[in-house]
């Protein structure tokens, strides 16, 4: 048996609906036989009647409704059809969910699932990575699972956490990534994972870029370099300790993210290493992001717009040559 990243998300939701009566799923086109634009809820409406609910195309109201339900003790999961459309719900997520606990002392346990990131041919409005925006605002936890195992366990953890969670699931990984079975163990939320130990360079990344970084690391190994690859898993909280420990081993840092380059997660990682680990560095820390343009539709342009194995390896060589 094998299970894909997408199936892990569906299985996690099935598990949650089965185990926790407070859970319901709220989103566009997720109910009935259709089961969502990406089939992340396929079959769940029939198995859990009344708990997988279609909504109007009202991203703002979807999240607002989830907030109200959470305040009444429920554990709603909101599915955005694409992460890009969550911009319409920014007000509810940032200003209502994100401030609720701080202002009223009452936690707001909603989980918002964002089908994130680029795939070939998706273009400017169906490819975005929004984690940097959500991490910038206080009051939210932002998860970016990179593996089938994390997709499953982190979604279950997201719903259990008493605070709002933005769960960024990567669309490219939905079908491309498979594991033999659902995981039996879990790594706690808030801990990054060293996916590949190394001595010469730390590549700190998350979500789909973990896989591009691993491929680049393999390429660099042929040149005699051992690259330490760190999967952040959650970008907020950011596991600075694991990042610093990695940089202490290698003295060099490359931070990779698929999102736009201005600010964001990669800049945050570098800022923290420069502040807390300047003395650990043998070379200036560097980062690699998508280009500072909207995301192009054509596959030839798209594959150059985002970081990939080749551009990561090239950037890594520059840092290693310093």
């Amino acid at each position, binding site marked *: 048996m094998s299970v894909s990243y997408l199936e892990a998300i569906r299985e996690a939701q099935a598990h949650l609906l089965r185990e926790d009566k407070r859970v319901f799923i709220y989103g566009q086109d997720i109910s009935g036989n259709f089961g969502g634009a990406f089939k992340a809820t396929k079959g769940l409406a029939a198995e859990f009647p009344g708990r997988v609910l279609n*909504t109007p195309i009202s991203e703002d*109201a*979807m*999240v*607002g*409704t989830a907030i109200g*339900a959470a*305040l*009444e003790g429920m554990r709603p999961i909101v599915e955005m059809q694409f992460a890009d459309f969550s911009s319409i719900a920014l*007000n509810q997520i940032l200003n209502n969910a994100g401030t609720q606990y701080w202002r009223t002392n009452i936690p707001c346990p909603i989980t918002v699932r964002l089908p994130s990131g680029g795939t070939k041919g998706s273009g400017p409005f169906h490819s975005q990575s929004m984690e940097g925006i959500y991490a910038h605002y206080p009051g939210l936890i932002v998860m970016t699972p990179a593996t089938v195992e994390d997709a499953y366990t982190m979604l279950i953890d997201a719903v259990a956490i008493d605070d709002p969670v933005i769960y960024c699931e990567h669309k490219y990984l939905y079908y491309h990534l498979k594991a033999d079975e659902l995981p039996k163990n879990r790594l706690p939320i808030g801990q990054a994972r060293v996916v590949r130990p190394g001595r010469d360079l730390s590549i700190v990344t998350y979500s789909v870029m973990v896989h591009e970084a691993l491929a680049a690391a393999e390429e660099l190994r042929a040149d005699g370099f051992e690259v330490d690859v760190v999967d952040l898993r959650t970008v907020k909280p950011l596991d600075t300790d694991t990042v610093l420990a990695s940089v202490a081993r290698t003295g060099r840092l490359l931070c990779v993210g698929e999102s736009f380059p201005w600010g964001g997660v990669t800049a945050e990682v570098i800022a923290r290493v420069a502040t807390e680990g300047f003395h650990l560095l043998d070379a200036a820390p560097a980062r690699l992001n998508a280009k500072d343009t909207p995301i192009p539709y054509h596959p030839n342009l798209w594959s150059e717009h985002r970081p990939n194995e080749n551009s990561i390896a090239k950037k890594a060589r520059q840092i290693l040559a310093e």
Partner: protein
Amino acid sequence: MLQTAGRKGTSTPGKAAPHKRYLEAFRWMLQTRIFEEKLTSLYRGGLITGGVYVGRGQEAVSAACGMFLKKGDVFAPLIRDQAGRAAFGEPLLDVARTYLGSRQGPMRGRDGNIHRGRPRAGQLAMISHLGAMIPVVVGTLLAKRMKGEKDFVGLTTIGEGGMQTGATHEGMNIAAVEGVPFVLVATNNHYAYSTPNDREFVCADLVDRAPAYGYEGRSLDGTDLSECLDVIGGAVERARAGGPPQLVVASTLRLAGHGEHDDASYVAAEIKGEDFARDSLQRAEEFIKEEGLADADTLAQWRADATAQVNEAVSTAQEEAAPDGNEEDWSAISTRTLTDRIS
């Protein structure tokens, strides 16, 4: 061109019998007026930081919004709802503590003035973004239904300004889609801050939108307490009984600035002579005297009682410690182990 989109009231005070809870409502209105005058005076004395926002002129509508809700119901008040909040059960001390920044208030100095709330007691804490509380109320009602609760209703208020946001549209629609027991009371006080109706909307009356959303709609004279109680009480009752969502549009004039920092000099002189520009509290007191519902001594006693309550709340809050930045728990999430630590 001045556009006054309100309709005249349907009931005629002095002829029909007053609502049976008329005097109770009057006392909430009176307490509100006294409290808000006190807050204004504290603000002008430099004792309140930030702002003071009052509901002068809207006390009748607001009181009616709070009075028909009970334990288990959900109320999401807005900027001009002191009377409704008090009628729903919010202690005066919560108000004083929030305005005066006591660390013991429900907001503990983290948010001020009209943003206060106690979600667990059914009173949601508004955010400033208008229309945002509508779907939140819908969510609480959806959850109650899922949990098997019965006999509940949710009510939120808004102004004619807030009626124009996209969030309000999404929220009103989703309430109807979910079929939850929901009441939206929109008060057209004729100014969105300084902008008059003709730059806000062009339909004859905002209540005309009700059928388009699948709501039942009523409009009323917001200066007429009896009508407020009749119409809003009726809307709450219909929603609670399983009727469709209810839209009530009340017509008033904001008899104050947007906040106490605002002198409202932009309010046109001619609008002050309109029927909806009357002071609902003054109208109610005159009605009580005319009808002999309470004698002068009783009215004076009510005023004295309210003043004493207000003074006690204010002096209690004033004696309490202010929050201290060095002692503050600077975590925006409840799961402390997941607080991001940035050096």
